[in-house]
């Protein structure tokens, strides 16, 4: 089943109408990639976010086997290249869709909601304050380590551990929020919700992802600092 409504050209080999799949519905020959096809369509999936990882794995394995260049060693160069193209997209698509965060980021980018480094995205002020304070603590800890002040280091280390736990908890909270937003998005697709509602849901997911990226950086920063501690 294909979810892509964009017309692909007829089969290059037999002229059969496009079926939207990897292979022609008429002669079974491998087809060129259609530019509009996305990663979800590549796996024959609707653009739903709460996807079943085991199902994705199965689809990935089945497709890697079917599209593998080894199957095309005796085919024309044209077909061999199509197999290479599709195999390489398969791997990209799998890598992106397998991870919930990159999956959502991909969906939002595809719908123009998220553009790296272009759209201005503000974080909530209270989070910024918190981020700032934590960064200051991290900096103090580094300075204390450099100056070899063991007592100060230990005290700061304790504070950081607490902060780390706090941010870990926050990360779990955000992930739960994201999972809930995924289910809402899928439900909206199921009842063919209008553009407005989809846009609203995507905007909210974008906001959650922004908060997540901040918190993830903080968790990474704290972990890095604590791991780097000689005797923390």
């Amino acid at each position: 089943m294909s979810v892509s409504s964009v017309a692909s050209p007829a089969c290059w080999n037999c002229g059969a109408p496009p079926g939207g799949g990897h292979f022609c519905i008429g002669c079974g020959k491998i087809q060129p990639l259609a530019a509009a096809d996305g990663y979800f369509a590549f796996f024959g999936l609707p653009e739903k976010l709460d996807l079943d990882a085991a199902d994705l794995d199965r689809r990935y394995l089945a497709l890697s086997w079917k599209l593998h260049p080894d199957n095309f060693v005796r085919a024309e160069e044209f077909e061999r290249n199509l197999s290479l193209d599709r195999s390489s997209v398969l791997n990209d698509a799998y890598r992106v869709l397998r991870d919930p965060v990159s999956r959502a980021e991909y969906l939002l980018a595809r719908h123009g909601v998220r553009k790296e480094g272009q759209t201005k995205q503000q974080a909530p002020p209270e989070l910024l304050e918190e981020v700032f304070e934590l960064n200051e603590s991290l900096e103090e800890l580094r300075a204390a380590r450099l100056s070899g002040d063991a007592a100060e280091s230990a005290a700061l280390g304790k504070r950081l551990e607490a902060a780390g736990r706090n941010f870990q908890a926050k990360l779990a909270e955000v992930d739960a929020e994201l999972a809930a937003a995924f289910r809402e998005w899928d439900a909206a697709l199921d009842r063919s919700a209008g553009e407005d509602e989809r846009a609203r849901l995507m905007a909210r997911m974008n906001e959650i992802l922004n908060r997540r990226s901040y918190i993830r950086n903080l968790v990474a920063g704290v972990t890095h600092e604590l791991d780097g501690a000689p005797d923390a």
Partner: protein
Amino acid sequence: MAYSDKVIDHYNNPRNVGSMPKDDPKVGTGMVGAPECGDVMRLQIRVNPETQVIEDAKFKTFGCGSAIASSSLATEWVKGRTVEDALHIKNTDIVRELSLPPVKIHCSVLAEDAIKAAIGDWKRKQGADEAQASAATASAKE
């Protein structure tokens, strides 16, 4: 990617690093961040209430070299300007001065936002002060 000499200079010798009391009515604080890269930037200004001139500016930025350089430059530029004048500083001016590559343009946007946020905060305080002052005179009349 190589940083320009000016970015490196600001990064190694950042100007006006520090903080000012947030509750000072003459101080405006702008706290902005770029969630995508995890940068966070705080820019503060102290404004002379008579002349509206920004007499001092401080910043503290956690982020990449370009973010630090952009905010450092921003504090240099706002100092000595009136509040209204400082609002005219554009991120493109910062991009040009620091020769920022396209991937680092968002750092300059952040610095412009920080200036605007600091001025906005200061203006809010002035509004609040006036409201308080008029409330005080109103209650004095009663």
